[in-house]
């Protein structure tokens, strides 16, 4: 039933990291029919991660980094369409665009990404209050940062802290308000999260945990951020990063099942024939456990893109790539392999005091995840070890001189 025919066509909604990858991989897998990539805007698709890193530095690159060069679309015969999808009819296999035109498809891929959660407090719509998701956001923020002297960051997640560290490196006074007891608490082990909190504080960031925002007021020429502790923090720029929601509206309206993401099976297909979902917008079963997860990372978007191309080509394999992620916060480079769980047993490798170490997270005697701080060699080995679900006894792991790199060399019998 899934055999791809020469008459097949593919429509991809969303020309982000995932959408571009599935288009690219379809061609390298030999798909010969028409591919239309709906971009929703008239600019060349670009990479988001630099927007909260390089792009905010003093000598930031003047232009966004594209996902593919401009010639890619002509040489690969992929139509990059500036239109946005407004509705999908899965019976007729037709996408209607906001300009009223329509596209027919054999295979449809939702790669609609995620949207920033709004800040639910009065004053959130004031002009000096910023969010960061698009190039447009980054350009506004970069301009505002050039003259800012005091900033308040709401939310100590990855984007909030990347921005905070970039602003601090420019000599700006930075206060971070976080409702939860720990920064990046959803994604990091408590050990890593506590280390980051201490490190950001020693770099001069005023990190306030267990403290949320209640309102943002205008005060003179600037702003004043009122917190749940009753404090008022003056600021000339506020950035919030309080999480994202998967963009599922279009899929829901088309009758697809969603629950914190568009629901797909292990081949990244939805329950509706010919429709797939990938990247930030997709909720998929985790390899091994089958538990549903939705990830927001470049690795997830590109590996989903490659896998979905193979599913469209008629292969029925289970998606089982090991997740990995990175974040750069000032001079701190974090790399994560696998997905940790609060019940994992943490073992510190190396010396946190000198800022170069890893945290190995054991689950039932198996290496489930590794968080590496300024330790790429550990991360490279960890990706292979986590992928192989290697048993790692505590006495081996905690022996003096244990190195993930050497361990990987021994147990995987390939150079790590």
């Amino acid at each position, binding site marked *: 039933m899934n055999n791809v025919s020469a008459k097949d066509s593919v429509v991809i909604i969303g020309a982000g990291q995932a959408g571009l990858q599935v288009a690219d991989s379809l061609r390298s897998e030999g798909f010969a029919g028409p591919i239309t990539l709906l971009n929703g805007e008239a600019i060349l698709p670009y*990479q988001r*991660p*630099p927007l909260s*890193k*390089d792009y905010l530095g003093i*000598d930031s*690159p003047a*232009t966004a*980094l*594209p996902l*593919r*060069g*401009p*010639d*890619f679309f002509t*040489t690969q015969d992929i139509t990059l369409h500036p239109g946005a999808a407004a509705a999908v009819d899965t019976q007729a296999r037709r996408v209607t665009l906001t300009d009223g035109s329509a596209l027919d498809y054999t295979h449809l891929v939702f790669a609609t990404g995620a949207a920033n959660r709004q800040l639910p407090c009065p004053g959130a719509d004031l002009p000096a209050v910023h969010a960061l998701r698009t190039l447009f956001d980054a350009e506004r923020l970069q301009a505002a940062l050039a003259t800012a002297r005091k900033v308040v960051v709401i939310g100590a997640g990855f984007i909030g802290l990347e921005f905070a560290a970039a602003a601090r490196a420019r000599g700006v006074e930075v206060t971070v308000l976080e409702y939860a007891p720990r920064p990046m608490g959803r994604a990091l082990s408590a050990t890593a999260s506590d280390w980051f909190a201490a490190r950001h504080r020693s770099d001069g960031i005023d990190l306030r945990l267990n403290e949320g925002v209640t309102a943002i007021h205008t005060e003179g020429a600037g702003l004043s951020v009122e917190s749940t502790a009753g404090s008022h923090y003056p600021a000339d720029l506020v950035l919030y990063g309080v999480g994202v929601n998967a963009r599922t509206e279009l899929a829901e309206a088309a009758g697809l099942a969603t629950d914190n993401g568009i629901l797909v099976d292990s081949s990244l297909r939805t329950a509706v024939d010919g429709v797939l979902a990938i990247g930030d917008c997709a909720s998929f079963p985790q390899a091994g456990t089958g538990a549903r997860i939705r990830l927001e990372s*470049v*690795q997830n978007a*590109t590996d989903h893109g*490659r896998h979905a191309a193979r599913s469209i080509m008629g292969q029925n394999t289970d998606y089982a790539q090991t997740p990995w992620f*990175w974040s*750069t916060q000032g001079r701190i*480079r974090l*790399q994560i392999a696998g997905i940790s769980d609060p019940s994992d047993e943490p073992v510190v490798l190396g010396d946190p005091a000198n800022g170069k170490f890893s945290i190995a997270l054991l689950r039932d005697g198996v290496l489930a995840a590794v968080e590496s701080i*300024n*330790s*790429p*060699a550990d991360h*490279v080995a960890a*990706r292979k070890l986590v992928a192989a679900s290697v048993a790692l006894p505590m006495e081996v792991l905690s022996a003096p001189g244990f190195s993930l790199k050497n361990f990987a060399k021994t147990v995987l019998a390939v*150079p*790590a």
Partner: protein
Amino acid sequence: MPTITFTQPTGEATEIAVAEGTSLMRAAVTNGVEGIVGECGGQAMCATCHIYVRPEFADQLPPISDDEDEMLDCTTAERTDASRLGCQVKMTDQLSSIVVDVPSDQE
């Protein structure tokens, strides 16, 4: 403007003129040079911008940092003495007319 020549495994060469300060990765991705992906946006986190620098330019290159060195151990194509991460080599006047080879596999 300094130029970079990217040579593909097929022998096909592309010469690109770039502003000083531009990394080899950014030049390649912006101009659609095949075989250079740059998935992490230039953070030395992904190793998909792996290139081989021709030996005659070796002594003009910036030194390899520990981070780059460790990430070079996870390139898809084999690491050699000529291996660099394209995102960590920025163009300067000294590097003008540099020639690099693109590996056969990057992902």
